[in-house]
């Protein structure tokens, strides 16, 4: 299966086609999710800029802006969409934008790329909450604390098979979750100063902790083609992972000294 996926990726790259298959965040069957063609870079889950086909989207605390970048050198500002308050992250997947806000997760469709249209909101307790999506599920981490308000530290898995009615599927408690990444059966959760976790999510009713690297700092990840890129306050770390065998192995680090 992995081989097949790799071949698919190579085909996508070589064609530089603008397929609707999102390319980012993860690297598994349906999990490519943060860009839209192979020519587009992949962002982490904390991203507030994202590119889908010929459009660049940026968010600030309240507003989503769209830009036509079909002439890539000359972005043309198109529209402001008011998103409400506490907007934090943006994740494109399958022709929709999933927007992490302090009050919940908003889903917007991109039928009209210039002006994304609100579909629904999944409300949760006030907190910081990046979101990634794979298949019929959105994975949202909620982090409490002074800068985020709120008290919860958890992973919410949300059933989005009906985009109009996102529903909580299950909640798992975490320590201090920041960014996250999903690829096939692997879910990676950064726990800030408490390390990095890898879960096997083949059974969403009972996700299984495979590995917890406790002695690194991690705030966001990009899983891509079996390599996990991790940024933390202490360094840029990389791991090789295998979702079928449920293995993860350290590769390298560029250390960071925080001022």
């Amino acid at each position: 299966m992995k081989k097949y996926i790799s071949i698919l990726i190579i085909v996508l790259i070589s064609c530089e086609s603008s397929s609707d298959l999102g390319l980012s965040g993860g690297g598994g069957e349906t999990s490519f999710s943060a860009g839209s063609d192979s020519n587009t870079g992949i962002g982490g889950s904390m991203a507030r800029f994202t590119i889908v086909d010929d459009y660049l989207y940026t968010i600030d605390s309240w507003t989503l802006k769209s830009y036509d970048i079909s002439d890539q050198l000359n972005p043309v500002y198109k529209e402001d969409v008011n998103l409400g308050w506490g907007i934090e992250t943006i994740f494109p997947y399958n022709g929709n934008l999933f927007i992490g806000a302090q009050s919940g997760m908003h889903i917007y469709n991109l039928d009209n790329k210039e002006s994304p249209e609100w579909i629904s909101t999944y409300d949760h307790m006030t907190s910081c909450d990046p979101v990634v999506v794979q298949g019929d599920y959105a994975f949202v981490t909620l982090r409490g604390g002074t800068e985020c308000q709120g008290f919860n530290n958890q992973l919410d898995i949300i059933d989005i098979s009906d985009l109009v009615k996102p529903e909580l599927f299950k909640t798992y408690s975490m320590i201090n979750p920041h960014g996250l990444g999903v690829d096939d059966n692997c879910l990676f959760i950064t726990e800030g100063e408490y390390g990095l976790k890898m879960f096997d999510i083949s059974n969403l009713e009972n996700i299984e902790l495979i590995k917890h690297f406790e002695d690194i700092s991690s705030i966001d990840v990009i899983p891509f083609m079996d390599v996990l890129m991790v940024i933390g306050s202490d360094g840029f770390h990389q791991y090789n992972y295998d979702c079928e065998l449920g293995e993860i192995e350290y590769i390298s680090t560029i250390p960071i000294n925080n001022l």
Partner: protein
Amino acid sequence: MNLTSYIFFFFSFLLFSCQDKCDYYRSYTVHDPIYASMESIRDSVSFTISREINNPGKLNYKGGYLFISETKKGIHIIDNRNVTNPINIGFITLPGNYDLATKGDYLYADSYLDLVVFDISDINSISEVNRLKNNFDNYYLNQGLYNEDEGVIVGYKEELKEEYIENHDCGLAYD
């Protein structure tokens, strides 16, 4: 409230009014904003050889290269074609940067009020090629981080201030 409480209240007022007056120094810290003009910020963009990474923020990966935002300072470029030996190869000085995205030969990033476009086709010689000025001014205006006269707030300097308070109720002296 019962009668005892009323009596207690009454007497506590008497206590207040009988108190001595105090003179004292009160010290406190103020955070004075440091402003910079958008013109000077726009002029400071440059591409240099790598430097140490601090305060990492957002990530973007494209074709073997990783772009790491250093919050408010700029963007580091990592050659990650060999994952066992990633190399920090360059740094774009871009004040007020938080976010970034890439497509094709271009990198899109914010710099306070502006959206800036960089040509990344030659990873060893990245250059600014376009800029949408004042694109994010609403955000900075609303947050009180920008005004047209002084520019944007790029930091704060701490100052310890002392104030002489005369003839103040002693009981309230340490507010």
